[in-house]
């Protein structure tokens, strides 16, 4: 079974960027429960908001009015460019992407969806269709999905040439569909796929093609959203585009089961033909928590912090790359970083076994990182956004030490 196995690590407590096991030993959490703990474990402001709301009213549903959901929706919409201001609340990234796909198909009247190879968009039957990593795809029917060549600057056949990659999208539209599609979805920096950042300029070209074919453009911001990339609040902004639909989850609630789909009033209107109802979605506690997250990120200037610490971290990792041959690539931005390990820099042969060994070694030294990529040879460094320069230095030193001892 393909699984990230952390042998018997029993986590009992968490505070900001640290976790504690049952012996009270402290670990640096450089993976944030899979890019989910955005502000920090048990962040006091978030905790306070959750506690206060829990004591008043925890669940109501949208058949009644409650102030928290509107406040949070307004807060989210204020962070969005263009006319992206209608919010649907759901409980996970999978639910958000399911809904986005439904909207795309209803709005366009077309069926075909385009997604990138190496993408991850969810674990339900339909989102498994969008996901393009065989380890996560069960053998079930997944209709009308086209997976295009991944604009992966490190491994991709066209290097960082966005134009050539984009042509594959047009190719699929021209030959694999009626010429009209429902939509396109991608992460800006692939998460599960191993922190792969799309070749620069790619999305602008693709969005244009998709829209000409009647489709909508969906940005999966489940991992890249909320300032994590440092340079921008949303990942798609790094590619200078404005999507039609944005999906988010993970960091949105610092760990609360919460997801959201943001779109334009025009596209949202298409849902009004029938009833789309989510019992838990937008409940008072999650809405209060989500709003607290937005406030904390602004108050503590987390986006800038991600840019500063991120560039420091990436800088040090790139130095490390000079020293150790096994580091094939260091990529990403802000606190969304990937380190790809290879046994041969030219062939780029995945160093799967070595990655697994280093993964455990880092844990022994007190650092929890993530692992990704189809071959499990990419370290994913995506800590809570309060991770600081000292933490970064510790991580790099530990990695240096561990690789040296391999």
């Amino acid at each position, binding site marked *: 079974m393909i699984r990230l196995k952390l042998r*018997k690590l*029993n986590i009992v407590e968490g505070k900001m960027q640290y976790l504690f096991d049952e012996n009270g030993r402290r670990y640096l959490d450089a993976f944030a429960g899979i890019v989910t703990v955005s502000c920090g474990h048990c962040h006091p402001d978030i905790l306070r908001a959750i506690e206060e709301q829990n004591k008043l009213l*925890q669940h109501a549903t949208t058949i009644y009015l409650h102030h928290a959901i509107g406040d949070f929706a307004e807060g989210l919409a204020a962070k969005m460019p263009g006319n992206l201001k209608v919010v649907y609340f759901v409980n996970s990234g999978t639910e958000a992407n399911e809904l986005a796909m439904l909207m795309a198909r209803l709005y366009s009247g077309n069926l075909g969806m385009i997604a990138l190879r190496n993408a991850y968009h969810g*674990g*339900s039957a339909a989102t498994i269709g969008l996901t393009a990593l065989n380890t996560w795809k069960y053998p079930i029917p997944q209709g009308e999905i086209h997976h295009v060549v991944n604009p992966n600057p490190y491994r991709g056949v066209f290097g960082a040439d966005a134009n050539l990659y984009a042509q594959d999208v047009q190719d699929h539209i021209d030959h694999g569909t009626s010429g009209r599609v429902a939509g396109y979805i991608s992460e800006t920096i692939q998460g599960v796929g191993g922190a792969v950042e799309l070749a620069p300029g790619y999305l602008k070209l693709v969005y244009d093609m998709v829209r000409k074919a009647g489709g909508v453009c969906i940005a999966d911001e489940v991992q890249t959203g909320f300032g994590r990339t440092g340079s921008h609040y949303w990942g798609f902004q790094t590619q200078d585009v404005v999507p039609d639909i944005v999906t988010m989850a993970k960091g949105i609630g610092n760990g609360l089961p919460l997801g959201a789909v943001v779109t334009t009033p025009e596209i949202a209107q298409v849902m009004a033909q029938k009833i789309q109802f989510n019992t*838990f979605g937008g409940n008072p506690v999650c809405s209060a928590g989500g709003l607290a997250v937005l406030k904390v990120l602004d108050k503590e200037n987390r986006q800038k912090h991600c840019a500063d610490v991120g560039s420091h971290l990436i800088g040090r990792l790139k130095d490390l790359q000079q020293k150790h041959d096994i580091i094939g690539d260091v990529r990403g931005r802000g606190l969304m970083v990937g380190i790809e390990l290879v046994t041969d820099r030219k062939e780029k042969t995945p160093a799967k076994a070595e990655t697994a060994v280093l993964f455990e070694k880092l844990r022994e030294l007190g650092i929890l990182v993530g692992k990704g990529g189809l071959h499990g040879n990419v370290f994913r460094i995506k800590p809570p956004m309060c991770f600081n320069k000292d933490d970064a230095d510790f991580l790099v030193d530990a990695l240096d030490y561990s690789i040296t001892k391999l």
Partner: protein
Amino acid sequence: MLRKIFESRGSALLRLRLNQSRRCLTKLAYETAENDHQHFVPKMPAFDYKPPPYDGPSAAEILAKRQRHLNPCMTYLYTNPLYLVDGKMQYLFDESGRRYLDAFGCIATVSCGHCHPQVLEAILNQTKKLQHTTALYLNRPIVDFAEALASKTPGDLNVVFFTNSGTEANELALLIARLYTGSHDIISLRNGYHGNASATMAATAQRNHKYNVLQTGIHHALNPDPYRGIHGSDGPKYAKDVDEIIMYGTSGRIAGFISEAIQGVGGVYELAPGYLPEVYNSVRKAGGLCIADEVQTGFARTGSHFWGFEAQGVVPDIITLAKGIGNGVPLGAVVTTPEIAKVMTSHGYLNTFGGNPVSTTAGLAVLKVIENEKLQQNASTVGTYLKNQLLDLKEKHEIIGDVRGRGFLLGIELVTDRELKTPAPLETLHVMEQMRDMGVLIGKGGVHGNIFRITPALCFTKEDADFLVATMDYVMSKM
């Protein structure tokens, strides 16, 4: 002067009416009327909590924000939407501090009671320690809760997958059934509701919840509905429809069958007796798995049993849970056998939020509360009491076509003609609104919107039941 005459005549008329309808009135309401002959109005049971004053935005401001920023298919239960601020046990409070009896349980979800102290304490304690890590690491609450859940389910049903909603749970159940059997066809019931994502929208069989998108591999069987169904209460006769679907609509082998034991959104239709054993038999002969959607009927709500399917004397292969499982926390679960669960090990499946420490701690607290406070027994006793009162009410008001359900999952169907069973959606809306004005919140369901759904928190009392019935009686009498 004139007023005094009018009032005394009024009270005489009231007494006359009281005598006529005395059988349907509870002692409490009657006493109220006796003592307060100016205003005969049912009185809510006492409750020792006063909400703090509320200084938040006005209802108008909230509505405006919603219209700007929330999904346009959002509907509100009342023409003048109810603005909720506080909740304690079976009561809710609006922005003016007014108390309401929550007989809908915010859609059968608040099982122990709003802000139940034990559940709250468990949630807050865990939130302060560790709120999220994912199942990549070990932590205690998830296994404690899984173990406790497994102890409540029959047979070999002891492997749990945690999700964040009923939709996610049903999506996973359908995926598992299809993988396990290698077949694609699923049979579900007309009027059933299972969720709003791709496979679950297909399994759902009510047009208002189905969008015009591709939905494959689903067959909707005749609903074994004792009230409106063509075969009355003859479960086995309805079951033949499933045989026919398998025989004519599929290759003869199917992935499975999914149903609620008592339809929730559909309007509290309890499956005709003897239905599930026949169907489960047919489905298994065709290689399929039997999925019991316990999102509304689970966790002692039906009173007679912990799980709804138990009332039909069957043991499913997969059970799906949500709503009441966490008293409102976004949590869902799929429980199945180790053999069936194994099918998921061929590839990776990880639900990021599923099984997080806080949600599972809440779930475990809910199970303990249900046991310690004997909520199943309460659902049975008070639920039966309430149902009997409602049946009495049916004798009195022609508009009540049917009273059904069990425990705290009750339905009242309103019709303009008892023989033709013509749905009375306008009257339903009217009664619901009037009852809200008098302080009682109930729900609505059914494709025609003419069925009241009564699904309160399981701590609902006899006095609450009396108040509900008296209010309904009062409103219907004035129609």
